[in-house]
C-alpha cells in the first residue's frame, strides 16, 4: 500500500516546550511532517495545531498514539477519517515586467480572488486563501511571470459540523435555552 496524506489536528495545552515535544517525537520516531501550523484555539490556554503527514496507515496510527501519549496533548483527530474543511494562507510576490503583464496578472488574481496587499513598479504581492489545489493552481499560473518569493502557512483544518466535531460554547447554549 502506498503512503497516504493525512491532515491531523492536535489540541494541546499551552505549556512551555509543547511544540518541541511534538517536533521531537516526529523526529525521533522518523515520522515526516509536510506542514505544521499552530495557533490559539477558541479556549484560552489551549492551542490547535494542524499537521499534514504522509505515511502508511500503520505509521499514521503510531503517530496518533504517540502524540496522544504526550501529557500536554489533549486530543488528536485524523481528519482523513471524516469530512473536514481546510484552508491555507499564502503570500506570493510576482515580478511585473510590463504593463501587459500587470493587466494579465491582475486578471488571473481576480479569478482566484487573490487580494493585492502590496504594489510596486516591478512587483505585486498577493494574499490568497483556499485549499491546497487552489494554491497550487495559482502558483502555476504565476510561475510564467516569475515568482520572486512566496510563503505558505501550511494547512489548518476543522471537521465539518455535521460530522460531529466541536460543540456549542457554553454562552451560546445559554442563549439558545
Amino acid at each position, binding site marked *: 500500500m502506498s503512503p497516504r496524506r493525512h491532515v491531523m489536528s492536535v489540541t494541546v*495545552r499551552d505549556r*512551555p*516546550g509543547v511544540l518541541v*515535544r511534538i517536533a521531537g517525537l516526529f523526529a525521533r520516531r522518523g515520522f515526516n511532517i509536510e506542514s505544521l501550523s499552530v495557533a490559539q484555539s477558541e479556549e484560552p490556554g489551549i492551542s490547535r495545531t494542524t499537521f499534514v503527514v504522509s505515511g502508511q496507515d500503520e505509521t499514521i*496510527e503510531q503517530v496518533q498514539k504517540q502524540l496522544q*501519549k*504526550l*501529557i*500536554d*496533548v489533549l486530543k488528536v483527530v485524523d481528519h482523513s477519517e471524516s469530512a473536514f474543511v481546510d484552508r491555507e494562507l499564502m503570500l506570493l510576490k510576482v515580478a511585473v515586467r510590463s504593463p501587459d503583464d500587470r493587466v494579465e496578472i491582475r486578471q488571473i488574481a481576480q479569478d482566484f480572488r487573490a487580494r493585492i496587499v502590496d504594489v510596486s513598479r516591478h512587483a505585486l504581492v498577493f494574499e490568497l486563501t483556499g485549499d491546497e489545489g487552489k494554491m497550487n493552481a495559482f502558483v502555476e499560473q504565476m510561475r510564467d511571470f516569475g515568482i520572486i518569493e512566496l510563503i505558505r502557512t501550511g494547512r489548518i483544518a476543522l471537521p465539518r459540523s455535521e460530522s460531529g466535531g466541536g460543540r456549542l460554547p457554553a454562552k451560546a447554549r445559554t442563549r439558545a435555552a
Partner: protein
Amino acid sequence: MKGAEVLLKALERQGVEIVFGHPGGAIMPVYDALYDSPIKHVLVRHEQAGAHAADAYYRASGRTGVCFATSGPGATNLVTGLATAQMDSSAVVAVTGNVATALIGTDAFQEADVYGITGPVTKHNYLVKDVADIPRVVAEAFHIASTGRPGPVLIDIPKDVQQAEFHGDLEVVVDLPGYRPTVAGHTKQLRKAAEAIAAAERPIMMVGGGGQVAYQQVMEFAEKTGIPVITTLMGIGAYPAGAPQALGMPGMHGTVTANRAISHCDLIVGAGLRFDDRVTGKISRFAPNATVVHIDIDPAEISKLVKAHVPVVGDLRDVLPRLTETLGRLDIEPWWARLDEWKGMYPERYKQDKPLVSQEVIQLFREATGGECVVTTEVGQHQMFAARMFPTTRPRTFITSGGLGTMGFGLPASIGASFARPGEQVVCIAGDGSVQMNIQELATIYKHQLPIVIAILNNGVLGMVRQWQELFHAQRYSEVYLADSNPDFAKLAEAYGIDGYNVFDRATAAELIPQVLAKGKPAVMNFVVYEAEKVFPMVPSGAGVDEMIIGDQEAEEQVTAASDGEDAPSSESEVPA
C-alpha cells in the same frame, strides 16, 4: 518557607523516604534543606548510579524511586539512567538543580539544557520557573511516573526558585486533562479475547514487565486455564520460573521450548509486553500461525511491532481477572504433550572440562540461596546466563536493564534494590566489563554495609561482543580483551573495605559461595571463568525465532574449522532447567 523546603515537603507528601543523589552548586539549597529533613539521602559517587539505584528501588518495591543531581554535568550524568528507566517502564522522579533563571540561556557555569536533553528519555519533564508551581509539579510528576505505563519524570529547578519564598498551599489537586490512562479493558474486546483463547488448540501466554504488578492475576489466569507461560526478560518473576506451566524466556537467548512454542502456537496472549526485537527476532517469522491477543496499558504498544488481532488496552490487574472468570480449563493436552517433549530435550548444559564456567557459578548461587534473593545483573553474557539459570520465583526480584541494555546498571541497581527490600540478600551477577562502569559504587555499598554479593563472572573479555565476533565477524576479536589490564578485583574490593575473593576453580566456588552469603555482608567474588564460553541457544540478529543455533556443537562445528580446534569437543553436564 523557601522553594527547597517546599520541594522536600512535597516529596514527603508523596511518601518519599529515601533519595539517591549527589550534590553540587546549583542544587545546594535543596541539600541544605535536606539537612533538617526526615528524608534519608544516600550519597552515590556518580549521578548515573543515583538514577539506576532509584530505578531499581522502584523495580524492587513498586514505590517510585527518587534521585537528585546538580545542574550541567550532574544532570547529564542522569541521562543514561533515565533512558534505562524509560525503556523498562520504571517509575523514577529525578530532581535537578539548574542555574538561576536570570542565567539560563547564557552558557553559565555548569549550565546545560536539561529540559531539552531529557525530554526524549523521560515520560514527562518540567522546568519550574515559579516557586508557586513546586507542589503541583511534584504531585503531577509522581502521578505521571507511577500510573499508566510507569516511567521517569524529571523536574528541573533553577537555584533562585529553590531559594524563593513560597506563600502558597502545599495541598494540590492533580488535574491533567491530557493524561487519562485506560485501566479497565473494553468489555467487547474482552469477550473477543476470551472467545479466541477458548477456541485455541495451541495457545501460549507471554508475560512481560507489566506482569510484575500482576503476579497474582497472572497466576490465577494460568492456573485456571492451564495455558503454557513464557516470561520475557522483564517478566522474570511475574510467573514463577520452574513451575510446571513455565516454558522459560523467549527470544534471542530464549529457551528452545519457548521459541518453538512461539513458532508453533496458534494463539498468543501477550500480557504487559511490547514485543521487543530481542523477543521476536524477524517479525515476519514470529508466530506466523498465531492469533495475537495483546493486553497492554499503553495503546501505542499495540500493533506497533506485532499486529494484534484482538487488542485490549488496560491494566492486567483489571483485564486478567475478568478473562479468568469467563474461561475454563483449556483443552490442550496434545499441545502440552509436544511442549513437554521439547522441554525434556534441551536442558541447560555447561562444560565440565574447564576449571570454572559462568553457568555453574550462577547455578551455585541459585542452590546456595534457594532462589530466595534479589538478583540484579549487569548486561552481557552473564545477564543471559542469569536470566536462564537464575530466574527468580517472586515478582520484583530479577532486576536487569532489558530495553536499553545498560552496562553499569547492575551494581548501583543492587544498592537501590537493597534499600527497597531491607534485610534481603541481593546477588549482583556481573561481568568484568560491565562491573567497571560503575565500580565506584563499592564505596556506597561499604558505607551502608548492604548485604550485596557481587559475583563477577570474569572471563577477561567483553564476552557478548566476543561471542558475536566469533560467530559473525570471522573471529576478528576487535577491542574486547580486558584480561591484561583488569584490576585484581579482590584487592580492589578490599581497598574499598569490602571482602574480596578471587576464585579459580569449581571446588573453591562451591565451598566459598555459601560461606560468603552466610556472612550477610557486602562482598565481591571474582570468578575467573572460561573465556570462550558462549550463550546458547541463540537466534542470530535478524533471523526468525525458528532459526535458532541450539548449542555449542552446531556452533563449534563452524568455529573449530577456523580457530585451530581451540574448542576441542567437550564433555557437558546437564543441569535441570
